[in-house]
């Protein structure tokens, strides 16, 4: 699979990673390498093998529906760049 420079820009935007025009070529080559790896894996014959969604063959452990957490807001917000009136503050976002 070959990727265009536009594909790279789009993927970078979706991942919120800044890729400068100089870096596009480099990233493109690396990503194509990864896609090549995926293509190689796709070519393995998996006929008769049930698809797995997870690397480990185990099932989800379920916990009882009980409240076990208490309010630790002060602690958590001491780590935040900005907080006020109990809220985490972020640059203004308006849709």
């Amino acid at each position: 699979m070959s990727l265009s420079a536009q594909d790279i820009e789009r993927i970078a935007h979706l991942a919120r990673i800044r890729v400068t025009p100089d870096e596009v070529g480099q990233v493109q080559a690396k990503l194509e390498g990864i896609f090549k790896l995926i293509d190689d894996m796709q070519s393995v014959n998996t006929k008769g093998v049930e698809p797995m969604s997870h690397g480990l063959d185990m099932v989800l452990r379920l916990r009882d529906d009980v409240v076990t957490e208490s309010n630790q807001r002060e602690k958590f917000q001491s780590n935040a760049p900005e907080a006020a009136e109990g809220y985490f503050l972020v640059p203004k976002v308006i849709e």
Partner: protein
Amino acid sequence: MSQWEIVIGLETHVQLTTASKIFSGSSTAFGAAPNTQASVVDLAMPGALPVMNKGAAERAVKFGLAIGAKINQRSIFARKNYFYPDLPKGYQISQYETPIVEGGGLTITLDDGTTKFIELTRAHLEEDAGKSVHDQFDNASGVDLNRAGTPLLEIVTEPVMRSGKEAIAYAKALHGLVRYLDICDGNMQEGSFRCDVNVSVRPMGQKEFGTRREIKNLNSFKFMQQAIDYEVRWQIEQIEDGKKIVQATVLFNPDTGETRAMRTKEDAMDYRYFPDPDLPPLVVTDAMLAKIKNEMPELPEAKCARYTSEFKLSEYDARLLSQDRATSEYFEAAVAAKADPKLVANWMLGELSAALNREEKSIEESPVSAHQLAGVIARIGDATISNKIAKTVFEALWSGEAKSADEVIEAKGLKQISDVGAIEKIVDEVLAKSAAQIADYKSGKEKALMSIVGMVMKASAGKANPAQVNEIIKKKLS
């Protein structure tokens, strides 16, 4: 308008009634101070891992069983990736390829009494995002993550509805059902039950669907109706003007009654779903399934059937009384208090529902309890009061003037006059003044009799037994 067909599908986010969040032990209680119910998992602190809440899985299964759906005993959680400040992980945990519930459906009843089966595509478990506030701080948005991680069941229909009325009827039926099952509190103001409505139009007879627009986050049935009506008109006008509909997400503005595009799907998000490596498959064991089946309450469909067979109610009345849990509980409480079921149905769908609508109250807030209504009906049944007087008694109970029907009847002297002598006396007085009507009646005008009966009822202040009045007048004039 008639040459256009409306196509509607709904996606409803139902907040589950668990005490704790879907992947953490934080409380889900509504209204707490910002960020006081957000733990390391909800905040996406590095290294924090999700642990699935059994209660959320059970509620999803309960729903699936109630709508006759296929329960996937092995379902898979996936990451839905997008960036927004109220989604700290950068992805929402949801289900994509294999949801816990697939297929099934529910029957809706329209105002004209016709019914329609609405097929569901799926229902999947997911976590809610946090909340952003944009107007509280000058140059910043505030983020409250109390809601982040609250369990949701997203219920998706096929695009099978053909009018706004059908969509509302479906939303109401679904709302009734989740409350019956006690898997959601149904509180629309608090956002426990939110509907996204997909609307498109197409020329009547065309097979292909038109381009749809999605109206997001409708939190009342009234707004839903207004939003759909506006959206349908808008789409038809666009097409008739030769313009194309562009797939978009729109918001409804209750103040203007209009819908407006929030974002077009052209720059739409690519969510890049993939199975969440933190969460192996969710398995619903046979034992869990059997236990939930055992605990299923009587559902609206079954109740409706029972009301028609056991109480001989009409299909229409039975549906209205069984559709929501509170209404059915009120009805059954009144019947348990020995009131005639048919009269209870008439009163609930007539006087009571009119009074509730007038004061915008829900049946849980009714000032007249089921027991009090049963008391009113009992006094009609034993001929203590007429139907008309019963309405006066009902109103007195509604306004809180008295605690029981008997108290009102006693205090206001409303007891029906069934004493033949007393009625005859009033009849004689009226007849003495009604020569013209008597002559009309004798010449064969049945209507004249009604007018005499009316005068007698008036003279008795509505308290004479109407059947007896009728009989006595006829006897005296024969």
